[in-house]
């Protein structure tokens, strides 16, 4: 029996939870960002600044602005999720599952003839 079959219906596995959380948080961030940015910035200003080779309607500007912010937030949220998923397990700081730091000693301790010279 594989893991898939053992999942309880209605409960989301880790991957599903991660994807849903990343999408939702990025969406919220993009909403707030779009709202604040276009509250102070007139998309018509983009045309006046003459950066784009075509005249952009304000609906398109709002939409592109939102999509751009959504994309950037998605990248940030996905990377954050990835870093947390692949990072040390819970209890890392408390020393759980940690391999002890490597043993070190004086190089000459067991090698009486080792003359480190300039390395000393």
């Amino acid at each position, binding site marked *: 029996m594989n893991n898939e079959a053992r999942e309880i219906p209605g409960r989301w596995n880790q991957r599903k939870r991660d994807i849903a959380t990343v999408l939702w948080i990025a969406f919220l961030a993009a909403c707030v960002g779009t709202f604040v940015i276009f509250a102070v910035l007139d998309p018509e200003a983009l045309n006046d*600044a003459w950066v784009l080779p075509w005249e952009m309607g304000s609906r398109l500007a709002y939409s592109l602005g939102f999509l751009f912010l959504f994309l950037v937030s998605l990248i940030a949220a996905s990377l954050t999720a990835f870093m947390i998923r692949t990072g040390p397990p819970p209890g890392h700081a408390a020393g759980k599952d940690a391999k002890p*730091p*490597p*043993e070190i000693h004086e190089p000459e301790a067991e090698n009486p003839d080792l003359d480190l010279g300039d*390395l000393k």
Partner: protein
Amino acid sequence: MTQELGPGTSLYRKEPKIYPRQVSGRFARLRVVAVWVLLGLFYLLPWIQINGKQAMLFDLPARKFYIFGLTFWPQDFIYLALLLITAGLSLFFFTALAGRLWCGFACPQTVWTEVFMWIENRVEGNRSRRMKLDKTPWNLEKILRKSTKQALWILFAAWTGFTFVGFFTPIRELGENVLTLSMGPWETFWMIFYGAATYGNAGFLREQVCKYMCPYARFQGAMFDKDTLIISYDEERGEPRGGRRKTADREELGLGDCIDCTLCVQVCPTGIDIRDGLQYECIACAACIDVCDHVMDKMEYPRGLIRYTTENALKHQGTRVLRPRIFVYGALLLIILGSTLWSMTHRVPLRADLIRDRNALYRELPGGIIENVYTLKITNMDDEAHIYTMRVLNNDAVEVDTSRELQLQAEEVAGISVRLRIPRSEAQGVQALEIELQAQQEPSIRKVFKARALMPTEAGNE
């Protein structure tokens, strides 16, 4: 120096503070070269002038980027995107080929940490002295050494912050402003911000950035295969490890080549033991190779017990350098770099657009002439002044009248009123015109663009 387990301490040993031992050798020298070249570029570039402009200046208020004598305008932001793609692809390419070269030799975290550690080493002494100094109670010497180190670190970090801001504000002006203490509030803020970031990252966080914070360290494994260059300990040759006299016969003792001096651990900036195998903490700085080679020389054993190798080579299976992923990354990189260079060298430093006057359709002038009014938006993106001529390519009957001579200074942006006059008998309805703008002295600076002219129709006449 073994970490001691004091009485009553927990089962787990404290994560020891890492005191990397200074190391010399081929790769240490290579890193010093990398530090000089990269930091040299960073600290010197803003001071170099090309064609009277700072060699690298991101002039945000004027929205122009000056890079090696080239001027980039907001319209050129495609190059920024291409630059980012190129940087990403290069990282893939070099990672697949040579592993974490970036981490060990080029990453700012490594490069600045190297300088901070050099300062520390000069002021507080070598590894064992630093450990001893940290253990002794505060006395005059400790206060002197620690405060000298901090002062030098802060000075260096401040200079770094200053240089960073110098990429956004002309650095010579900025220098004068700093000397007379008359910087703007935002310049001051960014100088302190960037200086503090340098100090924190290179002075304190160090290997923790690579271990806990760096995304590249986590996903670089995905770009690896069995033919990627890694730094590895030759277990087959080294084990069983153990101390011995130089004259002892290894075979008689039943020992491998590793004399277990633990120097490879002591020089490691991330505090790992390379003999435990490939670990994600390894930033491939090759300090362990340098020190192990040194020890092998002393023992008169062949070098390379720890070396740059590949997983396949370690299994005696032969390494393939040229393999599909190298070709794919390499080809993509070449295509993008090539097309970027081509388009940059073929860039026409002129931008023009004819925008119809929104208030009127057209005007009828005496003599059966119809006049359409426009604003010519024109940018001379060149660093020389030019006079341009404007003509209509696909209709000889159109007369062009500009409100002033089309002369623009270097980098000037202008809006010039333009009237196009067409005899009524020549055309009716919407006219699609092809308009050419060309620099008089330099015919290669030429732009052709489209505009519409409105003419009365017969139907409208009735």
